[in-house]
């Protein structure tokens, strides 16, 4: 089979993985050195496809042969899809060629399970090793870890990769048992735990061998089982807390060819995925807890963003005096993001904050207005019921950006 054919099949098979970021790697440069590749700590998107998602990495599977039978996965053994397998050399060559032409920032490599978890993991590690040692490639490498693999292989993977990920895929044990019979929450958690121990060890002992400097991440599929957003976010919160993940990615379940009956036929609204990313961002960046965003079981609102939903449900904190409140609270005001919250606090060291400042900071005035007090402005206190505000501020139902960090929150 030609390289193009393999690429066609194995990229198609990899597109269900939501992870794309190439950020958080330490800065590296090839200036004046043999080999190629640099990282600047920030990550760069090199293109966008018509689904609105960015292309920043060569995201492919080593092979889509797989002996597992995960129901949500197009590559499961009972799925009737064309199969292909790259050689180690082919993946290395594609990565280097694409990198030199400035198409990508690096490689995101995953694989179906062939023969055994250990065998598959060995192949993934071999590719990363070849890139790093033979080609002295200093670009970004993300390896998807096979949870059942020998910890020694995970350790080796961490020596070459910038980031490791172990996908939890589904938010509850019972869903995993039902939809991914060969997987085990237990080994998934053990793999994540092993990675965190290694990361901690490296953090405490700078001379320890290099280990996944950009940390670990995971992915959860949304809408393949009946779990609601509260369940999904609680699982995410638990994973963040237990394994210090850099990111949890949420991937709205995509219908797959010859879909088995055990998974839904229709995808969930993409907007649900977007709200989960927004909520996740509030957990990581703003100090929110799941119990604040979703005190009861259920889903996030689709018509308004989670921060606005929280503010409308907690009117007792508002309106907030921007000339007195602390930074964390200012950042909780709908329409004011972390960056603008910092700017407001900076500005008020020089002078009092006025209403017009907010529009110069490009805050969404419609959102901000009922929630703030400034030197020259006080909203009519508690006169507008939350329901009315909500109707006024609801977004028209539409598809939105899937990567909230690319937008001002």
């Amino acid at each position: 089979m030609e390289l193009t054919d393999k690429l066609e099949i194995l990229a198609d098979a990899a597109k269900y993985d939501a992870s794309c970021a190439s950020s958080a790697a330490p800065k590296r440069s090839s200036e004046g050195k043999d080999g190629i590749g640099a990282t600047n700590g920030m990550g760069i998107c090199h293109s966008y496809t018509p689904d609105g998602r960015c292309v920043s990495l060569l995201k492919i599977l080593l092979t889509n042969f797989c002996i597992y039978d995960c129901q949500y996965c197009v590559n499961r053994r009972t799925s009737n899809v064309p199969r292909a397998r790259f050689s180690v050399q082919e993946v290395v060559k594609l990565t280097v060629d694409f990198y030199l032409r400035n198409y990508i920032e690096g490689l995101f490599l995953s694989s179906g399970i062939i023969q055994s978890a250990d065998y598959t993991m060995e192949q993934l590690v071999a590719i990363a090793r070849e890139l790093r040692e033979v080609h002295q490639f200093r670009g970004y490498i993300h390896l998807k870890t096979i949870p059942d693999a020998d910890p020694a292989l995970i350790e080796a993977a961490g020596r070459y990769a910038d980031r490791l990920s172990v996908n939890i895929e589904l938010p509850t044990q019972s869903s995993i048992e039902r939809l991914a019979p060969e997987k085990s929450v237990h080994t998934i958690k053990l793999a994540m735990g092993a990675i965190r121990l290694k990361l901690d060890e490296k953090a405490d002992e700078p001379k320890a061998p290099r280990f996944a400097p950009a940390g670990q991440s995971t992915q959860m599929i949304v809408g393949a089982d009946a779990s609601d957003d509260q369940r999904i976010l609680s699982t995410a919160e638990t994973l963040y807390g237990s394994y210090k993940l850099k990111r949890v990615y949420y991937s709205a379940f995509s219908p797959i060819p010859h879909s088995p009956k055990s998974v839904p036929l229709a995808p969930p609204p993409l907007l649900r995925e977007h709200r989960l990313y927004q909520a996740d961002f509030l957990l990581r960046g703003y100090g929110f807890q799941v119990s604040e965003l979703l005190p009861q079981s259920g889903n996030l609102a689709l018509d308004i963003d989670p921060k606005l939903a929280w503010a409308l449900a907690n009117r007792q904190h508002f309106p907030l005096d921007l000339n007195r409140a602390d930074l964390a609270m200012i950042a909780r005001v709908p329409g004011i993001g972390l960056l603008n919250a910092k700017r407001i606090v900076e500005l008020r060291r020089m002078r009092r904050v006025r209403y017009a400042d907010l529009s110069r900071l490009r805050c969404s005035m419609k959102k901000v207005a009922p929630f703030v007090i400034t030197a020259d402005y006080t909203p009519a206190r508690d006169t507008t019921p939350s329901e009315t505000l909500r109707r006024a501020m609801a977004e028209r139902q539409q598809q939105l950006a899937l990567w909230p960090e690319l937008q001002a929150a």
Partner: protein
Amino acid sequence: MSGAASALDWPAGPVLARDFAEWREAARRLIVRRVPPESIQWMQHAGDADLLSDVLADAGAANDAGAESAPHAAPALRVPRALMAMLECAACFRAIDRWAFLYRVLWRWQRGEQEVLSMADEDGARLQAMAKAVRREEHDMHAYLRFRERPEDKGAPRFVAWFEPAQDVLPQVAQHFVRRMGRISWMIATPDATVLWDGAQLHHAAALLRGPADIEDEGEALWLTYYRSIFNPARLNADLMHSHITTRFWRHLSEAAVVPEMVAQAATGARRTGQSKAVGRRSGTTIPVSAEQAQPEREQPRNLDECRRCELWQNATQAVAGQGPRHAKIMLVGEQPGDQEDLAGKPFVGPAGELLEWAMEQAGMDRRQVYITNAVKHFKWELRGKRRLHKTPAQREVLACHYWLQEELNQIGPGVVVALGSTALKSVLQDGGVNLKDYMDEPVQHEGRWVVATYHPAYALRVPDAQAREDARAAIVAALRTAWRLTQGGAA
């Protein structure tokens, strides 16, 4: 400012600034002489000034004169590095009045108007917007510039790119590619300048090409294959794509040519399954492996790990069983695994474990004869900020988990049990109402064994008062000593 002084040092007339370095030099001299922004006319190109050539000649002379005399005559200008960096960045923004504007910012800042840097200030907002546009252009050039590979027999440069930057960002962008490409040679051509990297050094030149270089590059076909296949038609959202890359850049991206076809395919069918048409056309195959064969060989999970007697398993990594010799004389019972124990799967490996180790040594206890476990086998925790903080297990959880402690007691059969802390004591005595303090003075007999009670080592680490910490350590050592004596047949 005295009019006479400025007339002497700086006759009115245009000041030439072809780049930031020239502007900075000029601005430095103007500022220390307190020449106000309104009285300076800035020029970008010497050629702009055909009509003004006479004036320019004068100004040039003045420039030189200033350079010699000014640094000593005038007080030094102190500008914070962050401000200079900001000005330098904004200077790459293509605006006719860029030098005049930057000078006004510097002028206002020098007069103590620090808000000139704030977004809430009119000049500040413009400055920031300029800097942002420049950074954005830099970013876009990092992202959307494409190298084509030239045939090897053509020699250097091996890679060639054409780009039309909207701001003056070529020099800094060239640095980015120097870091990226190592010793490989390349060239970036733009409508007004060219940079060339020979593998060791950068060379700057005037415009060399008039448009994109037409080079047959096979890599491009592979790239388009990848681009088509990584797209998920089930998520079609072309507007979003266009909102990320402005039209200006699409023109030179090879993938732009295949987008309409992809969108059309997605709209007619591919959307249902998310699979690309090319892949769907091929014949497929299932993998003939039976379900039993596919099951990975996992270490048989210990029954403990499958325990669902309470809810604690859900948020923990694993159940942590006790460790120690099969017929240990002493069993130490702690409360529950902590953050580290949960990850490692072993009891007492964290800081509390270290303290316990130390106490055993102090008490002369032979470690090899001790079995160490916990009353509750799964880590119970709550999130504080980004950390998992230990949370005391509820009585029902202690009761549920007693099942496992009992198993261990039956199997190991220790003569002495040391309960470390109140939770452990409650579990060992199977009585949720007991008070640790009441049991600390003397060992008691329970179900045919000695039970010695003392503090949990974590308490001895955590209690804020230094004296109390000392006392707690001493108490733990004393209790272990008592326990050890009991196993040696000593009296209670």
